[in-house]
């Protein structure tokens, strides 16, 4: 039976009855049990957002300690052993535990709302992904605080990270932490792809999808193709060399240390764009809502993001210009690295055109977009510089590159903060404080530039990366002190944000369902959204769904409300296709994640982890796949009918 689209004709009475029934069907169990069993994409997504922000703060504290150590030459605040752990965990956590999960988490929360779905596709997988990620994150920081943190850099180059030069378990912890976050990112990507392709509201054809949804879709595909490479590299190759004596990277036995670099950067470069593309989507959403204009050049923006997704896989060798890459090969990667600047530039021009034509309201999210342009363009331009082989050989592995990469990645953090201010009313029903928001913005942009701009010069003056100290006669002291002062300003700005969020969560000004008068579907849900997201699944009539709706807005009817049922639509046109019985809340995802933990944590110590893990994984997987009987549904529906 296909769901039917009719004009809205329901009475208020029908609505109330339906709301009660949906509430009962989609709400989780109360209390701790509900907390552990929930498969609601909003509860899981919010958890994900908060957890990854917590890791952002912990990894930021590492950076603070590093800046403290580097503020003066020959400082003795931390020694080389501690410093190596600090920068390794800083980089690893910022990439694997903050940037990618945060960008995915915002997608897990908002993509279903923006495409008008009741929940994300594969909700149990979603919960499982979160728990797996949490275990991986705790493993990394637990190791750091027990002084067994990995210390060979987030890139873990062999042979330094190999068995001969890194005895002990530090690198094994790194390798398995990567495994946990890979699993989490991959399942998240699959959920987003399927939700976007199969669960869009009727009428939301691909060319009507919000740009943030496009960005998440492109990112999800990039995750799908990039992340298995680092899993192969760390979980199979590196762990193999360290745990069972394969010699894949050992030149004495015919192995090759450069193999690791290729595998790692084939993942590592797309990783940057996995962080960056969602931020582009956020910029588009904010610009659209705060200029009250549809974004200029929608097809160009979509194609630019897709082009970036493809091109990002053709750049990895520009991390390896100082190795033995032949000249001709290197020039190919110079060309692709320059080429990827074109779609990015095009997007920036489209946003400027949108702002130019519109009527920008300078609320905090919009300020962060301007901060993004000011900051990111510097990172983009230095990126074009380091694409040049001869210049890169001077800049590579120096503070010039530290400056470049932070300008690019913090370029993605600006829109992230902007979108926090934008979506906070949706998440909590309340506004973040505007005055504190502006203070946060100014402190942040000043702090970022004060910290990272001097690093360009430090790099050209010869300051190499990953050094725990430097000699006074190098003359690097003053600029390092300046950078450290900047780091303090960044800390202040994040504290202002935390205070703002903590205060506004309870006592912020109340926001309605659509406080910004924004066009996308998440603003049609209540703030915060109910467990079922939408009372009626809307039918989309234009690209800016809420701006183009007619007064007699059609909705979908015919979905069951007594059991969890969602609408499945076609890939291209989002025509209603079928109905799907959605799984109920269950503890099984948590148990499965724990079993995955029981596989990979023992694998740090012994190959027998595989055997232990298989034994632990079997029961939860059987429970996961256990068939649901239709009678059970009917019985439940009857009980509920009686109750209503």
């Amino acid at each position, binding site marked *: 039976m296909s769901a039917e689209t009719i004009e809205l004709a329901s009475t208020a009475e029908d609505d109330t009855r339906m709301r009660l029934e949906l509430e009962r069907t989609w709400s989780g169990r109360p209390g701790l049990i509900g907390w552990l069993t929930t498969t609601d994409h909003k509860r899981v997504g919010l958890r994900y957002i908060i957890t990854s922000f917590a890791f952002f703060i912990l990894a930021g504290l590492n950076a603070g300690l590093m800046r403290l150590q580097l503020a003066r030459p020959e400082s003795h605040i931390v020694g080389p*052993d501690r410093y190596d752990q600090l920068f390794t965990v800083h980089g690893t956590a910022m990439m694997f535990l903050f940037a990618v999960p945060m960008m995915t988490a915002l997608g897990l929360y908002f993509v279903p709302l923006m495409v008008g779905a009741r929940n994300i596709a594969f909700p149990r997988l979603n919960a499982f992904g979160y728990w797996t990620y949490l275990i991986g994150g705790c493993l990394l920081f637990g190791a750091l605080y027990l002084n067994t943190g990995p210390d060979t850099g987030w890139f873990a*180059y062999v042979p*330094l990270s190999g068995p001969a*030069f890194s005895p002990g378990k530090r690198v094994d912890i790194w390798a398995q932490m990567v495994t946990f976050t890979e699993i989490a990112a991959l399942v998240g990507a699959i959920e987003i792809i399927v939700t976007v392709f199969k669960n869009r509201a009727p009428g939301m054809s691909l060319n009507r999808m919000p740009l943030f949804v496009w960005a998440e879709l492109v990112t999800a595909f990039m995750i799908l193709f990039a992340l298995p490479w680092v899993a192969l590299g760390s979980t199979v190759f590196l762990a193999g060399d360290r745990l069972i004596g394969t010699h894949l990277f050992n*030149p004495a036995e015919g192995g090759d*240390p450069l193999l690791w670099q290729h595998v790692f950067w084939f993942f590592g470069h797309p990783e940057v764009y996995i962080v960056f593309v969602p931020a582009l989507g956020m910029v588009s959403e904010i610009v659209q809502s705060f200029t*009250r*204009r*549809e974004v*200029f050049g929608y097809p*160009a923006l979509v194609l630019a993001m897709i082009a970036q997704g493809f091109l990002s896989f053709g750049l990895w060798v520009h991390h390896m210009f*100082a*190795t*033995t890459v032949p*000249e001709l090969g290197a*020039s190919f990667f110079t060309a692709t690295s320059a080429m990827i*600047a074109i779609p990015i*530039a095009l997007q*920036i*021009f*489209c*946003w*400027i*055109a*949108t*702002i*130019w*034509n519109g*009527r920008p309201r300078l609320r905090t999210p919009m300020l962060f977009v*301007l901060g993004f*342009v*000011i900051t990111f*363009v510097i990172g983009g*331009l*230095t990126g*074009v*510089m380091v694409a*040049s*082989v*001869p*210049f*890169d*050989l*001077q*800049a*590579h*592995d*120096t503070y010039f590159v530290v400056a470049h990469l932070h300008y690019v990645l913090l370029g993605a953090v600006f829109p992230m903060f902007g979108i926090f201010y934008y979506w906070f009313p949706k998440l909590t029903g309340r506004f973040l404080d505007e005055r504190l928001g502006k203070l946060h913005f100014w402190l942040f942009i000043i702090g970022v530039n004060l910290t990272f701009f001097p690093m360009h010069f430090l790099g*050209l*003056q*010869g300051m*190499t990366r990953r*050094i725990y100290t*430097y*000699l006074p*006669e*190098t*003359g*690097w002291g003053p600029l390092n002190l300046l950078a450290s002062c900047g780091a303090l300003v960044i800390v202040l700005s994040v504290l202002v944000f935390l205070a703002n969020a903590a205060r506004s969560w309870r006592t912020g000004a109340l926001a309605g369902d659509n406080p910004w008068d924004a066009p996308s579907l998440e603003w049609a849900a209540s703030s915060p959204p109910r467990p079922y997201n939408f009372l009626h699944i809307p039918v989309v009539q234009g690209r800016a769904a809420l*701006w183009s709706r007619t007064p007699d807005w059609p909705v979908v009817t015919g979905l069951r409300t007594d059991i969890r049922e969602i609408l499945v639509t076609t890939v291209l046109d989002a025509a209603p296709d079928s109905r799907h019985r959605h799984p109920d809340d269950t503890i099984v995802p948590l148990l499965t994640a724990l079993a995955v933990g029981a596989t990979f944590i023992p694998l740090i110590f012994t190959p027998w982890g595989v055997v232990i893990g298989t034994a632990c994984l079997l029961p939860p997987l059987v429970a996961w796949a256990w068939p649901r009987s239709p009678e059970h549904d009917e019985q439940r529906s009857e009980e509920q009918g009686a109750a209503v």
Partner: protein
Amino acid sequence: MSADALGTLLQQPLQFPGAHSALAPAGPQAERVHALWQFMWIVSAVVWVVVVLAALYATFRRRMPAVDAPLEQREPLSSGGPGMLTAVIGATAATIVVLFVFLILDFRTGRALTTPPAGALPIKVTGHQWWWDVQYPSSRPDQIVTTANEIHVPIGRPVVLELASADVIHSFWPPNLVGKRDLIPGYTSTLWFRADSAGLYRGQCAEFCGYQHAKMAFYIVAEPPEKFTAWLAQQRDSAHTPADSLTRRGREVFLSSSCVMCHSIQGTPAGSRVGPDLTHLGSRLTIAAGTLPNTRGNLAGWIVDPQSIKPGAEMPSNQISPDDLQALLAYLETLR
């Protein structure tokens, strides 16, 4: 090198950050890259200013009133007319043109710098955790010169470095002269440069290589050809035979303690290649891979407690009686 030549060198104050900077080129390669950098940063600064001004102007330009008109009264949502389309296409085309100019300059610079010229002086550099082994090869084994952390080169003559690693990946980088090149286990790579002005140029390892990656520096001493030839000839000699009883005792201490397990001194039974060759230690500017000036006090501190100077370094702390230490220092100082 004669004692007074070394004296002149040491008298020149190290000019930092100039003596360790890509912004103070002292050879043709660093020069060309520096020129490329100057062009790129000026163009980039212009691009940045234009983009940021455009964004700010777009935001703050004067508009018709009625900003917060209700939905129905607002202008149509379609954004931009043909003028805007032309502007965006024009800006993108300009981006492509700038990128092409960069690309062509990159390739030209790269081509000019890659091929080593004929008649270059070969030098072998091997990276170790955390010091540099430097060898001037020769067809006659007794003419091979081995030193550490200090590379003497004649000015005006190209030098080809043959780079290898003994343990993990390192990266050799003297910013004043040339861009970096990785030293990768299992691979040999080459790097060439030419120093055009006499001077002392510092460099340090650029690829993270473990605990003392920060203190793995080296000096390039660029000097006139005749001085260089004299230095090389002096380095070919075996170590001085101790002349007095104190230095004789010092040699005895060296040969009977753990020093001999790792270090070699030509002309003595000490021949281990684990640590730096010490045959002409006294003639070097620095110890501990560019970490400390080579003075008697620093050397004493380094021998007794290297772990407080370079925590994690391979050199162990040495329990050594004060008299023995004095004798050892006296002996090491004669190794010029």
